[in-house]
């Protein structure tokens, strides 16, 4: 369940708050948000109680499902996890369970409470014991096959009953293979060895389910991934005939519910991908084509290819792909057209959005253009700040919590189950091409109407100060690795920066940006130098800013701060140069925007020179407050 956020320490507080809300939808939405966290066993029970406090007929925007669990062992401990997982996928699940081992009788008796309940989903969650109990170890292959067939046809009869009487979707859970090996690996060749019996039974049953239109809940897949010791705990089995271990309850609930969600049309339809450090290693705008990491020959490069390969297969099974990246459109698309190692092609992407706008707005745009709901999107981004913001502003968008290691990005997407399907049709295979044809890979740019609102809501503050010996490493690195917002692209050694920062003629200033979602780190630095001959003039030697904080007005606030400091020092005029490179076109108009005037120049090297008289500088209005250096 690592695709969910780590449990918040404020969990109980949130829960308490949710319970004070009277409006049904509002309260359910609060609980829905809580269900997006990894919850402990008791947490789950508490959230479940909160869900159960609603009438099961309450009119809400969440879908109601009536689920009957026909089981031959104890499952009470799974019910909270099933209902909470339901809420996580916007379902309100009303559960009916039969008394221990009574499922046959209830199915056969039209006056039973099962009939009154009238389920729309029925799951058979059985232990293997009774199906294989009487097969002797010496039985031949034919005897084993016919004994298993007998068990399978009995179950087929139950399935048909459930189909016919309730018009319900039937789900058969695979049998847990909890037997101990008898011979060892040789079990595979002994028809009636217990481990072999159960795996063979599962095979036969899955085939029968497929032809009967019954869905197969493949716990075997989960056991292979997590290990049987996670799923089955002999102590609890002996104590209370609990087959699914309590520690696996959360996984069980989510795995089951994602199938039900798929049935109800609530699976996600579109995967929205960030690019830099998500689809490849590095930042294309800064590192360039030969600097980004992707491709065979390097472990990290192959890790990113692994994700691309998985994403491409998702596309082939009908998942729409979109790109949402903070980048120059042309720069970003060039990777898809020109990089020799990339597996994804531009034609795989239904909508390609690369700009410097807020991703929340871009996601809205993507949903609108594809004509699907925001609740059909899964957003993949390596940057925790972007993820947090999308979760906060668009709670209906699924945002898997990516691990730190890109090697596991694909697994994280797979484990999240957001794209669970209960079928695979010809239409699925063609779907993405249709979307692509419809939109002709429109590349989109949108200006947020609510930009001010968005920026205000970020509660940004800048922490700034003169660079000291403590910060030299990070400041030097920022100057040397930043290519996009870099006014002169001069590079420096640590010793040079150190000298500048102690030179009375020069100023080295650094800026961190904090917002409601956390600290973005040291994101901008500027070097100014004076001339002994002209005491009232300062020249912007170089100025860099990380692309992470583009579009946040930080450049305006930095200039406010710089002019203020300059004025205090009796400076009258600021000079600046812009040295164009292949990568810094994003700030071509920076100085003009900030109110500088262009100095007429005779050279044709493309370098532009700028000047501003400080008394003329009009403070730029921003949504960033100041914090003194900490």
């Amino acid at each position, binding site marked *: 369940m690592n695709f969910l956020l780590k449990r918040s320490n404020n969990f109980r507080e949130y829960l308490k708050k949710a319970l004070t809300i009277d409006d049904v939808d509002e309260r359910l939405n609060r609980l829905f948000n809580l269900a997006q966290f990894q919850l*402990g*066993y*008791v947490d789950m029970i*508490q959230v479940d*109680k909160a869900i159960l406090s609603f009438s099961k007929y309450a009119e809400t925007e969440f879908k109601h499902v009536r689920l009957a669990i026909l089981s031959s062992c104890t499952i009470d401990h799974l019910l909270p996890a099933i209902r909470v997982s339901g809420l996580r996928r916007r379902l309100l699940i009303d559960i009916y369970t039969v008394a221990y081992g009574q499922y046959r009788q209830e199915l056969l008796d039209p006056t039973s409470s099962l009939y009154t309940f009238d389920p729309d989903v029925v799951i058979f969650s059985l232990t293997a014991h009774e199906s294989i109990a009487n097969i002797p170890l010496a039985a031949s292959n034919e005897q084993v096959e016919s004994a298993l067939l007998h068990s399978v046809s009995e179950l087929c009869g139950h399935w048909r009953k459930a189909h016919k009487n309730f018009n319900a979707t039937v789900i058969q859970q695979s049998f847990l293979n909890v037997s101990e090996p008898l011979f060892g690996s040789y079990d595979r060749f002994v028809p009636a060895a217990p481990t072999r019996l159960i795996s063979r039974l599962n095979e036969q049953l899955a085939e029968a389910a497929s032809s009967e239109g019954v869905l197969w809940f493949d716990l075997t897949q989960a056991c292979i991934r997590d290990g049987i010791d996670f799923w089955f705990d002999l102590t*609890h089995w002996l*104590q209370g005939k609990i087959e699914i271990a*309590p520690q696996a309850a959360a996984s069980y609930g989510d795995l089951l519910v994602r199938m039900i969600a798929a049935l109800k049309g609530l699976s996600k339809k579109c995967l929205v991908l960030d690019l830099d450090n998500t689809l490849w290693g590095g930042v294309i705008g800064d590192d360039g084509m030969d600097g980004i990491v992707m491709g065979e020959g390097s472990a990290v490069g192959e890790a990113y290819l692994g994700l691309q390969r998985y994403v491409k297969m998702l596309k082939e099974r009908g998942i729409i792909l979109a790109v949402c990246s903070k980048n120059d459109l042309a720069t970003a698309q060039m990777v898809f057209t020109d990089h020799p190692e990339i597996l994804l092609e531009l034609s795989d992407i239904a909508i390609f959005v690369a700009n410097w706008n807020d991703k929340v707005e871009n996601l809205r745009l993507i949903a609108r253009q594809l004509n699907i709901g925001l609740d059909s999107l899964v957003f993949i981004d390596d940057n925790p700040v972007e993820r947090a913001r999308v979760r906060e502003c668009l709670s209906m968008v699924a945002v898997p919590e990516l691990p730190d290691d890109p090697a596991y990005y694909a697994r994280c997407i797979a484990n999240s189950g957001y794209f669970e399907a209960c079928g695979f049709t010809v239409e699925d295979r063609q779907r993405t091409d249709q979307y692509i044809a419809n939109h002709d890979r429109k590349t989109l740019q949108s200006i947020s109407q609510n930009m001010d609102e968005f920026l205000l809501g970020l509660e940004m503050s800048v922490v700034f100060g003169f660079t000291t010996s403590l910060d030299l490493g990070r400041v030097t690195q920022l100057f040397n690795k930043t290519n996009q917002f870099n006014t002169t692209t001069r590079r420096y050694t640590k010793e040079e920066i150190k000298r500048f920062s102690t030179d009375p003629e020069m100023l080295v200033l650094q800026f961190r940006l904090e917002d409601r979602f956390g600290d973005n780190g040291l994101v901008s630095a500027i070097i100014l130098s004076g001339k002994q001959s002209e005491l009232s003039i300062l020249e912007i030697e170089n100025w860099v800013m990380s692309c992470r904080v583009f579009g946040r007005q930080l450049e305006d606030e930095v200039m406010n701060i710089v002019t203020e400091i300059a004025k205090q020092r009796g400076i009258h005029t600021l000079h600046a140069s812009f040295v164009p490179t292949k990568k810094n076109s994003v700030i071509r108009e920076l100085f003009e925007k900030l109110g500088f005037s262009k100095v007429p120049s005779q050279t044709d090297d493309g370098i532009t020179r700028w000047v501003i008289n400080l008394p003329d500088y009009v403070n730029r209005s921003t949504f960033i407050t100041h914090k003194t250096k900490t």
Partner: protein
Amino acid sequence: MTEEKLLTIFTQILQNLLDDQSIVLTMETKRHDVPDWDSFNYINFIVAVEMELGIKFKVADVESFLSVGDIVDSAKLLIG
């Protein structure tokens, strides 16, 4: 881990499990002393304790627990 620490953890777990902040467990507390602490919630309690402390009681342990004190003693041994 001390007896006291374990009792605090156990108390918190049971308070949350039964939604009753007035519960205070002592070494002498028995299940029937606490309203709503039925057999289902007893299993839930044991499971929650196991997960919280990262321990596993033995099959025989759970059947032999007569009081909270027995669970504390057993947990203490398992934590080592």
